[in-house]
């Protein structure tokens, strides 16, 4: 069990031991960093490739289709075929585009998407760097994608791109606020910003003392996950790339491998947002019986599944509905959730705790739903028309 649990950590140690036989100590540090970087740099794009396959299969099944099935068994080589297709496509840059920025934007968007992998705890002792501000680092770096998306949309010199870019900025900035606030209860409960410490704080009850099993944790989990879906520009929050309204939004003018880079960033952030949600509220790598990395992957892929399930089910929100959800529903509820977390920690007795927190959360969400009810004009009665 311990062997399986630590198999990746131990294999890295074995490589380092092997290297230390003929390398100086300083070089070992570089080798150690390079192994972690290499693992992440291989894992990120590989995940992206197979998430595209997974999404197409899953949405296909939801629509009673089979999905990709021509290239390789179960279409498993489809991402490679797509990659070859993308690489051989013509790279079109619009005549009026700002060529440098247009080229830089897809590169810039992939960097934060890859960087955030460094603080994701994949398993016990399996984190590239255990930053003591890991969560803050994650949120700050993933917010950088906004700049890249706006760079790309502005540099394309296309109305649809620009519209998509402006929608992106509005959406990402709005959802950043409730997202950070929704992460606060987990920080309060664990007393740390380090992702590893947050996971370790959920280790009780044979690895099942996840935050999601508390009232504030459940609400925080739902809100953090919803904001995460919005941060990734996924359905139903995909108005920045709304196909039916603004062609393809910010990546209208991108083709070939640059387009693939946009998608790579999107799918990698799908994975990292799911991973972070699992880390904050679903106990990360904590869990009984299975190895820690297996638990982490199960939770993360379950959340990825739900994101793709959303994609197969929900229609796109209107801009005003989406903004209203962020500012008028999620933001007040996250603040109340922080209050409830505080109350949970300063009250004692399970009944009082549960009753108080569930009561406050239910009442406040009901009140918020009431306040957010859209205005419906009364049905007109035509007195003289018959």
């Amino acid at each position: 069990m311990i062997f399986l649990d630590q198999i990746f950590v131990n294999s890295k140690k074995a490589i380092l031991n092997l290297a230390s036989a003929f390398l100086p100590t300083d070089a070992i540090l570089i080798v150690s960093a390079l192994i972690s970087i290499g693992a992440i740099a291989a894992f990120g794009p590989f995940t992206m490739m197979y998430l595209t396959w997974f999404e197409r299969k899953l949405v296909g099944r939801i629509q009673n289709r089979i999905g990709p099935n021509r290239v390789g068994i179960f279409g498993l080589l489809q991402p490679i075929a797509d990659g070859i297709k993308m690489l051989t496509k013509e790279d079109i840059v619009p005549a009026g585009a700002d060529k440098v920025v247009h080229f830089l934007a897809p590169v810039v968007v992939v960097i934060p998407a890859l960087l955030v992998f460094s603080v994701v705890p994949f398993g016990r002792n399996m984190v590239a760097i255990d930053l003591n501000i890991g969560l803050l680092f994650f949120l700050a770096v993933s917010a950088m994608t906004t700049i890249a998306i706006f760079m790309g949309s502005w540099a394309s010199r296309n109305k649809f791109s620009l519209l998509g870019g402006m929608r992106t900025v509005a959406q990402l900035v709005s959802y950043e606020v409730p997202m950070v606030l929704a992460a606060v209860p987990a920080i309060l409960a664990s007393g740390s910003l380090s992702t590893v410490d947050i996971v370790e704080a959920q280790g009780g009850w044979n690895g099942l003392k996840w935050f999601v099993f508390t009232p504030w944790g459940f609400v925080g989990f739902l809100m953090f996950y919803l904001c995460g879906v919005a941060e990734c520009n996924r359905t139903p929050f995909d108005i920045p790339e709304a196909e039916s309204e603004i062609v393809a939004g910010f990546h209208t003018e991108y083709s070939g491998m640059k387009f693939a880079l946009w998608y790579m960033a999107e799918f990698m952030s799908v994975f990292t947002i799911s991973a972070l949600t699992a880390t904050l509220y679903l106990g990360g790598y904590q869990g009984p019986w299975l190895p820690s990395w297996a638990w982490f992957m199960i939770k993360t892929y379950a959340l990825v599944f739900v994101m793709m399930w959303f994609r197969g089910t929900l229609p796109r929100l209107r801009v005003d509905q989406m903004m209203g959800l962020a500012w008028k529903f999620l933001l007040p509820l996250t603040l109340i959730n922080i209050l409830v977390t505080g109350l949970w920690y300063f009250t004692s007795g399970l009944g009082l705790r549960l009753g108080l927190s569930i009561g406050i959360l239910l009442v406040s969400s009901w009140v918020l739903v009431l306040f957010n009810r859209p205005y419906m004009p009364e049905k007109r009665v035509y007195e003289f028309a018959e």
Partner: protein
Amino acid sequence: MFGVLRGMGITFKNFVASYFLPRKPNSLETGGMVTLQYPEERLPEKERFRNFPFLIYDTKPDDLRCVACDICAKECPPKCIYIVRDNDEQGRPLKKPKVFDIDFTVCMNCGICEEACPFDAIFMDHEFEVGGPERQQSLVYHMDQLLKPATHFAKIRPTDHVAIEEKRRKEAEKKRAAAQAQPKPPEAKPPQA
């Protein structure tokens, strides 16, 4: 809120059902795969399906039923049939075509040639996988491509085959009876429809 959950439930039901329920092609009910892996799997052919005419022969390709009467070419709305009658060595016309071409790019699969033919010589086929490397020559079907045996017809359209065989047998009997009643029928008279 609850509408969203119900929608999620429906899509999940479809997702699960696509693995477990049997396939129901042409069904609008939820659940069950509807797609067909076309080149490997096919829907059973409908007997009355028609696409592209073919010329029928009974035993060997030389004794085809077509007598080059040109009725189908005249009846054909888009004029896609081109027939040249064959001649013997003395230059006398024979009761068979020398050239029989159908241009598939022009044919509209109406089946009027089949209805017009008084000799039951041309019928609509089930062939729908027709393609060519270019648009002009490879899609003009010549006589050797158009000729198919009567067994093929019996296979693709069994009920029509039985009816037409019955009709042909009765006509042959009538003709034989007429020949017996009238010992010397004129040679050059074209057969009656």
